[in-house]
């Protein structure tokens, strides 16, 4: 058994060397495509951070002073519910201080100074308002009206904050996902072709192996391993690239003024490592599939 494993490894390495240029091309292509896949994930997550406050068609947020009394709170709520034509009352939600603090952790992920100033006691609670109307002036006049209510510290409108970003986000997502899928397909085809070439280069050897009674799997496994390693190597390179990219991005974002919203575009490092693991798996699977298909298709000698 050990001998068979060492045989498979030796053959894999020898074949990799013989096919250097093609192998490197396959590795680079899979690295670039996987890097793009990873970047898509990160961009998505960054925009999600920015938009987390506004998830679910929220169009207006009414912030309530942390020290507001229960009466004041009830008064604000009553005011909001008295406009069923403009506000979707069923979707009206209230985030108490604890929930608001949880949300703030994501919004201010890249802005630790702001975050450190906040605590469960000092954070404003919030009403998330989903407008029924599409008329922006109506919502705006309503917002101006709520600002004057006792206990309200401020009112934010979605269209001021993120309408452009939201459109941009979905556009960027479509483009990057499309491009990474195409590149991933190219990587699989390139690995497939590399393995086909490797099999062709060794056809005499394979013919002899078949005649002396080597099993199909014995012949196939070194080729599958070669493709798998190519995919995995590409994934490793892309992980390195992703790490560098995220570092540069994080330090770039830190240069912006706090509270501009850009700071929430930072992606937590735990999420980045999750993406890296996903890339390694995708790379290995893509390489294994490409070489597996090639080796079962071309091994009939």
């Amino acid at each position, binding site marked *: 058994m050990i001998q068979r494993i060492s*045989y498979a490894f030796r053959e894999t390495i020898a074949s990799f060397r013989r096919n250097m240029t093609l192998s490197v091309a396959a590795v680079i292509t899979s690295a670039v495509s996987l890097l793009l896949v990873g970047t898509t994930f990160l961009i998505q997550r960054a925009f999600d951070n920015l938009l987390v406050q506004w998830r679910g068609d929220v169009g207006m947020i009414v912030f309530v002073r942390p020290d507001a009394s229960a009466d004041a709170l009830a008064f604000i709520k009553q005011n909001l519910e008295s406009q069923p034509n403009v506000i979707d009352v069923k979707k009206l939600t209230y985030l108490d201080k604890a929930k608001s603090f949880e949300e703030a952790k994501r919004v201010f992920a890249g802005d630790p100074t702001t975050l450190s100033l906040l605590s469960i006691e000092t954070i404003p609670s919030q009403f998330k308002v989903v407008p029924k109307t599409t008329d922006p002036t109506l919502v705006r006049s309503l917002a101006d009206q709520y600002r004057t209510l006792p206990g309200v510290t401020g009112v934010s409108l979605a269209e001021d904050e993120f309408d452009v970003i939201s459109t941009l986000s979905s556009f960027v997502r479509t483009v990057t996902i499309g491009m990474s899928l195409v590149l991933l397909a190219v990587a699989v085809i390139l690995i497939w072709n590399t393995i086909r070439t490797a099999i062709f280069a060794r056809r005499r050897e394979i013919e002899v*192996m*078949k*005649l*002396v009674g080597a099993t199909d799997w014995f012949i196939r496994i070194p080729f599958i391993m070669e493709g798998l390693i190519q995919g995995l190597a590409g994934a490793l390179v892309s992980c390195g690239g992703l790490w560098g990219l995220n570092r540069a991005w994080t330090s770039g974002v830190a240069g912006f003024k706090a509270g501009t919203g850009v700071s929430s575009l930072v992606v937590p490092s735990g999420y980045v490592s999750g993406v890296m693991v996903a890339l390694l798996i995708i790379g290995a699977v893509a390489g294994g599939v490409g070489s597996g298909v090639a080796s079962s298709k071309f091994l009939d000698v």
Partner: protein
Amino acid sequence: MAILIRSWKGSFVGVAHNPSKPHKAFVGAHPGLARIAKLCFFMIRLENVSKMYGSDLPAVRDASFDVAKGDFVFLVGPSGSGKSTLLRLMNRQERPERGNVWVAGRNINEMANSQIPYLRRTMGNVFQDYKLLPNKTVFENVAFALEVIGKPKHIIGQQVPQVLDLVGLSGKEDRFPHQLSGGEQQRVSIARAFVNRPLILLADEPTGNLDPATGEGIMALLDAINRTGTTIVMATHDHRVVNAMRRRVIQLDRGVIVRDQERGVYE
């Protein structure tokens, strides 16, 4: 040379006067017994085998013959008469359109694909063009045949020098094929075919690329291997070797067996 045949209880059953057809001793005893005996004694058996290439070009038509254990058979005939196809049918590189091929008591047409490697481990193959691997040494070429069927290193280290000694290549273990003469290369290929002690050796024109003197040496080697009990089927159109050996000759003409003769000559 007569062989006494006894049943499993020890009682006397019959006498086989012809060592290549010992089952005939059973024919009088019991028809079922005779059938079993046939499968035991015959290494290879073809039953009405036909093989087509393309739609209407039969490479082999309705071929039937038996090869007994330990036999040495020449398949003769001009190029394209179906000799190579017959060999390829015996190790299932090809499957016939009609008929059955039996090897060592098993119908190989009904064998699952996953069993074919194990069938091939019981047979060695020798070719006109040797099919040696150019980037491996003599030792590695022979060892390769054992390595890829998972034989442990110490067995390889033991058996390869033995078989190289048998074929007369001791001392040339580290040469590469291009450093050897044609006859020596064919000896390496025979060593590779024989190193796993196969039951059957299939040889396709093994002397085709060699001068007569070298070819004679190869035939002497195959004869020695045959005398260890290995069944040999050899396709050839080399008159000299067939006439010199005086072994069984099966002659083919456009895919049809036209002659099957003990101690035959080429004609």
